């Protein structure tokens, strides 16, 4: 089911957590809310769930105005960071809970609840664990039970709050892949919150980047990575360099020197130049380029990161192959960005 968030504002006391946020979530998509802590991503998720009430604005599930409904009536599935399993219930009872607490008129018979819970247990690959209690499971297994429990109510939308936040790195990676598979199979509209960009980019159909209670950019992983539309997104997703430059007559200048980089004709004055460490070429001839001295280098996986001092305290980091790095002259290095973006100061 599609979810529409319209002009939502949320204040805690007098502290504003979200300012005028609008977002359309398409039916069946897997969407990530990505941002640093305090960006309002969890608040947005909890507003959609009905665990919080907006100060202003509305939320629609399909054509229905969900803002008028309580959390119980919204029929959502919510997965918490710390699982929030009911520890005095077996795995099967946990999964069946949402069906068990329905009013008599809509409650399926006991045998049916058991059957559906077992089916979900199979889906999350925990067949045979139905009699266990939550404390007898590993963290990854608990989170899978939590997901099965959320799916048991056939939710309008599945909401996951940092679902892998409490897990080890390896389990996290496995579960990520597994969640994508489950989503492809079941097709639930799914929103998940994460502060881990790698997780968001790898898993989501679309990524919503948030900062300080606002949405910065919404797009596919490729869009937000390759064409960030704000300095924040550029800085937050992937690695980037930022330099203060002058724009004049369709040319970008740094410390008075031309760089062989073109800019829009109609722009003048100071600007911020953003580029990624890997989006450069090393320049050894005397065409216009950046020039500096190598401050340090370090090995990062298959590449070498070179920190370059450009004078007047400006530093950038470049990514080169180990072979290129071996041939570099520490006293003098030249390079030019191949992809970049200018933002106003």
């Amino acid at each position, binding site marked *: 089911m599609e979810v529409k968030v319209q002009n939502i504002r949320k204040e805690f006391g007098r502290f504003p957590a979200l300012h005028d946020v609008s977002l359309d979530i398409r039916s069946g998509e897997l969407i990530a809310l990505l941002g640093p802590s305090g960006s309002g991503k969890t608040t947005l998720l909890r507003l959609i769930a*009905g*665990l*919080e*009430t907006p100060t202003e604005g509305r939320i629609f599930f399909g054509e229905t105005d969900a*803002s*008028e*409904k*309580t*959390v119980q*009536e919204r029929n959502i599935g919510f997965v918490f960071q710390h699982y929030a399993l009911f520890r005095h219930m077996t795995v099967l009872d946990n999964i069946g809970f949402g069906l068990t607490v329905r009013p008599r008129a809509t409650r399926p018979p006991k045998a049916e609840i058991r059957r559906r819970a077992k089916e979900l247990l199979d889906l999350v690959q925990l067949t045979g664990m139905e009699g266990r209690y939550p404390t007898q499971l590993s963290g990854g297994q608990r989170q899978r039970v939590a997901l099965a429990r959320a799916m048991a109510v056939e939710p309008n939308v599945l909401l996951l709050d940092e679902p892998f936040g409490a897990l080890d790195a390896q389990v996290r990676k496995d579960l990520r892949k597994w969640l994508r598979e489950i989503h492809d199979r079941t097709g639930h509209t799914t929103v998940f919150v994460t502060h881990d960009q790698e997780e968001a980019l790898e898993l989501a159909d679309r990524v919503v980047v948030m900062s300080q209670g606002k949405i910065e950019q919404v797009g596919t992983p490729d869009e937000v990575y390759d064409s960030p539309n704000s300095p924040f997104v550029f800085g937050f997703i992937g690695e980037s360099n930022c330099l203060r430059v002058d724009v004049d007559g369709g040319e970008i200048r740094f410390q008075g020197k031309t760089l062989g980089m073109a800019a829009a004709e109609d722009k003048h004055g100071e600007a911020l130049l953003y580029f990624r460490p890997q989006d450069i070429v090393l320049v050894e001839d005397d065409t216009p380029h950046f020039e500096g001295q190598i401050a340090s280098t370090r090995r990062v996986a298959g590449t070498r990161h070179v920190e370059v001092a450009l004078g007047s305290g400006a530093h950038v980091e470049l990514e080169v192959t180990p072979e290129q790095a071996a041939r570099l002259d520490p006293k003098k290095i030249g390079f030019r960005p191949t992809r970049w973006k200018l933002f106003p100061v």
Partner: protein
Amino acid sequence: MAHNPPQDQGVTTETPFARALLIGLSLIFLLLVLVMPLLAVFTEALRKGFPAFLESLSDPETFSAIRLTLLVAGISVPLNLVFGVVAAWTIAKFEFKGKAVLSTLIDLPFSVSPVISGLVFVLLFGAQGLLGPWLQSNGIQIIFAVPGLVLATVFITFPFVARELIPLMQEQGNADEEAALSLGASGWQTFWHVTLPNIKWGLLYGVLLCNARAMGEFGAVSVVSGHIRGQTNTMPLQVEILYNEYNFVAAFAVATLLALLALVTLVLKALLEHHFSAELSASRRH
């Protein structure tokens, strides 16, 4: 159907009406069971006016009861303090076989009726007791005398200090002591300069509760005291005697002293919990 939009935290709390109802119920219950008895003590003591209240307190037998209560608590509490610290050191700082059993045995007096706690000493040291004849021939009086009162009180308050310290010391772990030892401190220095400062507020807390019980104990001392007026009557026993003689004002006058002791204990306890919650065991931090 019209819905009111849910309020903030509406998910994890009750409606204002339900809240008010539950708070009201609790307060009425507390009023009937705890507050009114306390008020009754003071009003009954002052029923015939303040002079009558003072007069009944200046009775020499009451004085001797106060002295005896202070004496018994003054001996029993330090004994249990030392035991509590040593037992907590043993149980909290070391891993050994039978630790759980030892811990259970220390708690044993909690589940023994006060009357039985007194009875066991009567059976041991009384005239018909196991050691009675021997004590008599050597002229030692334990039952119906101060030693018996002290023994019964020590038994009753036996677990108080240890119970407070064991969880606290377990939470604190051994790292501080190991650090001190690694810096060259001796065992005693480690205890005095590291362990004791760490547990001092918890210790005070335990002593406070231990003392309240020691001064207020009734059943156990009643069995071993023999109720010899002016000699083996502690304050709670004096309350009983005066009450049974229908001397209500005097009974409640002595009771006010004990009630004041209880109130002072509660205030000190609340202060400790408020100011030193980090230095008390987890279950005390509220």
